[in-house]
């Protein structure tokens, strides 16, 4: 049976994840080309396209990083294909270079960039506001707030981009990507095949002489887009009164619920801004007419607030504008209904609401033991960290990177001392050792190595840096949901027909001090680390072993044995044979039973790392 995202008929209503709704919106627009680099909260968009790809007519790829994804997509739109490129917010930083010139060059086939922002840092290293990229790059920006809008605005953004011949930004936030709601489908479009690239150097090659007129053309395009925003149905006025509210993105949902609960619907004038850049100045000017107070509700940076303040100043409109400079709303984190309701009351001159009573009262729920995420039972990263710690202890600076293995930060592994971004384990690790002479061991995953580790490694060789880089090759991109990367031999759709092996890449860079081990073999791993520790310069340890979750799914691998505690831990502690694995491995399968260490046979993944750490642990057959 064909998937409803592909085959669903117009008028049908389905419960869709925000990210699935984006996929359907693209299909309704007639999407022809999708490239991406996965990253929470965007990942279900490309993963859904990938899963559906065998029965769909579009071209899809997981690119090696966001810059490459945007460049590949840029080429596709230049060749006339309707194109969608997806990434998380920090990925746009990686892709910013081609993006800021693609807007000069234009996108004849249509081009939408999905930027999935993460206010609240649910799964990211920062909470940057990518609406600012719409301004710096010069792209119209649409911001959905529900699943239905996620579909509709994706389609609108793609159609508008193709009509304008200019890239459009579809900006979501975690709550929108990961909400589910009813979506009523419209009919898919089938576009004619891409016309192919049409040579026109003055239009497409931004040498300085051509770039200057290109910039003027971009400004004209933005004026056209502003005209569209003035009358777009995505920007809707409702209610009445002397107090106005302008809201964008998910804040619109919080506003709607706050008005509903406070019985204020209709008592204030509301402008829902779904098409938020270029700012529809005439619409906003007429909205402000007759208002005494205007509250602007947008998460993160005061982007609209600043622009609307400037507009009011330009037009000489005297109005009390409130938002986050100075308040009442904050410039960080997520908003919620109560926060928006409080801001509404302030704008209406009502007394601040009593804080919402909750059931816990003053009960110190916060003192409960935490449940932080942890490396899974059987995770080969744990084995690599244990071996490196055994040899380097606290004498090395551990330069980390982005993936499951960042969880190595937690005790007892404590194998992440600093982190900037994808690929920084290599280059920033080099900087630390060069500046201070400290010993640096870097950790990078396979997907991150291809994303932006290779460049740093070339630099390390060229600039004669001193670093031991451990490439944690678990044969998949585990953190974001097991997407393929160039070195994998299996994907969830079958074999990878064109593998790029890591070791020859490392050798090709000119590195000769290389060891390759299975980290679950501790003896060999410890030996390799000792050897590399005795050397200097750029050294690479490739620790290769599949992620056990992925191995079960993609290779059908089953465990053949489980570990159990055979000896008496108390005796072992006395006679010195206790390996202290309870305190050094932090395996989720370990627990204390009446003061004695035990291993949960259901949770044990059969990796047999603990057997190599403690003689009192033995293996027995088990395929549960």
């Amino acid at each position, binding site marked *: 049976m064909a998937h409803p995202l592909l085959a669903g008929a117009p008028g049908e209503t389905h419960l869709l994840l925000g990210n699935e709704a984006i996929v359907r919106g693209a299909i309704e627009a007639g999407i022809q080309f999708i490239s991406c680099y996965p990253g929470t909260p965007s990942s279900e968009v490309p993963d859904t396209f990938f899963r559906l790809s065998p029965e769909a007519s579009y071209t899809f790829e997981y690119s090696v990083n966001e810059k490459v994804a945007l460049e590949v997509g840029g080429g596709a739109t230049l060749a006339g294909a309707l194109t969608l490129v997806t990434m998380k917010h920090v990925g746009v930083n990686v892709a910013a270079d081609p993006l800021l010139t693609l807007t000069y060059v234009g996108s004849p086939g249509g081009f939408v960039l999905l930027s999935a922002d993460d206010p609240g840092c649910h799964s990211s290293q920062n909470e940057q506001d990518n609406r600012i990229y719409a301004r710096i790059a010069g792209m119209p920006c649409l911001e959905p707030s529900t699943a239905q809008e996620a579909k509709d605005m994706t389609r609108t953004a793609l159609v508008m981009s193709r009509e304008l011949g200019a890239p459009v930004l579809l900006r979501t936030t975690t709550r929108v990507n990961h909400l589910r709601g009813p979506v009523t489908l419209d009919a898919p479009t089938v576009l004619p095949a891409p016309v192919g690239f049409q040579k026109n150097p003055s239009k497409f090659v931004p040498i300085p002489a051509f770039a200057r007129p290109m910039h003027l053309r971009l400004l004209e395009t933005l004026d056209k887009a502003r005209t569209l925003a003035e009358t777009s149905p995505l920007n809707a006025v409702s209610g009445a009164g002397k107090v106005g509210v302008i809201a964008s993105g998910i804040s619109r*949902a919080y506003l709607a619920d706050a008005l509903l609960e406070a019985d204020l619907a209709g008592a204030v004038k509301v402008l829902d801004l779904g098409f938020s850049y270029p700012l529809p100045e005439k619409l906003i000017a007429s909205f402000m007419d007759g208002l005494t107070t205007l509250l602007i509700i947008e998460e993160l940076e005061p982007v609209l607030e600043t622009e609307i303040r400037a507009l009011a100043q330009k037009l000489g409109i005297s109005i009390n504008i409130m938002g986050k400079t100075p308040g009442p709303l904050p410039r960080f984190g997520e908003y919620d209904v109560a926060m928006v309701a409080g801001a509404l009351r302030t704008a209406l001159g009502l007394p601040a609401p009593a804080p919402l009573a909750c059931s816990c009262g003053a009960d110190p729920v916060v003192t409960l033991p935490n449940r932080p995420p942890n490396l899974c039972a059987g995770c080969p990263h744990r084995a690599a960290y244990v071996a490196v710690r055994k040899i380097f202890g606290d004498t090395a600076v551990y330069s980390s990177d982005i993936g499951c293995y960042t969880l190595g930060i937690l005790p007892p592994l404590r194998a992440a001392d600093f982190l900037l971004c994808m690929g920084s384990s290599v280059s920033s690790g080099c900087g630390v050792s060069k500046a201070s002479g400290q010993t640096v061991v870097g950790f990078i995953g396979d997907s991150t190595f291809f994303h932006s580790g290779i460049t740093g490694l070339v630099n390390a060789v060229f600039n004669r840096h001193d670093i031991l880089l451990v490439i944690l090759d678990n044969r998949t991109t585990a953190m974001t949901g097991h997407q393929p990367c160039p070195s994998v031999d299996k994907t969830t759709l079958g074999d990878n027909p064109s593998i790029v092996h890591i070791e020859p890449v490392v050798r090709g860079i000119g590195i000769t001090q290389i060891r390759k081990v299975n980290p679950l073999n501790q003896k060999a791993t410890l030996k390799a680390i000792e050897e590399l520790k005795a050397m200097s310069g750029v050294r690479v340890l490739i620790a290769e072993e599949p992620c056990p979750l992925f191995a079960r799914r993609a290779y059908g691998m089953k465990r053949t044995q489980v570990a159990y505690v055979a000896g008496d831990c108390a005796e072992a502690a006395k006679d010195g044979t206790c390996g202290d694995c309870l305190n050094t491995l932090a395996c989720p399968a370990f627990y204390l039973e009446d003061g004695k260490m035990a291993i949960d046979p259901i949770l044990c993944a059969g990796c047999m790392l603990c057997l190599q750490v403690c003689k009192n642990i033995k293996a027995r057959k088990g395929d549960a």
Partner: protein
Amino acid sequence: MNARMRIFMTGVGGQGTLTATTLLSRAALAAGLDVTSGEIHGMAQRGGVVESTLLIGYKSPKIGHGEADILLGFEPLETLRALPYLKPGGLVLSSTESIAPLSVATGKETAPSVEEIRAKIIARCGSACFLPCRSLGLEAGAMQSGNIALLGALCALNVLPFGRDVVEATIRATMKPKVAEINLKALNLGAACPA
């Protein structure tokens, strides 16, 4: 729709918290209700806490402190941790079978006992219903169906704007026959719990 409702769900990665959320959302949609649900992914999946929401008659997918009408906890410690989300007089349904956090399992920290958790919850909510979800799941045929047992108990309390029949139909419509059979059994076992 005038029957507005906020349900906050919490559990531990791998317990099927999100499966239960999606199932209940589909049932609400099948009942013709204006439903929105939300979930937070990412780092939480590696054995951490998984929180999700289901809202009927609202646009926002988020539930703030003191806003939830119902709290569904698939693990007792997490039920207690999520109590601030419940509004005064709200309803709690929780599993009584704990999954110890690693720090507790390895003796580095202590957690309140299930009896203590129960007492704290009962003292702070309008009404509460406790059931051994994992055991009921195992009795139905799969540990993972324990989350559906909790939904069964919720249905039996007649607080949702739709009945157990809608949830049963949704299970049949969205799951493979074998899996559906187990989950229907779990739903019934859970529904027999509230006395």
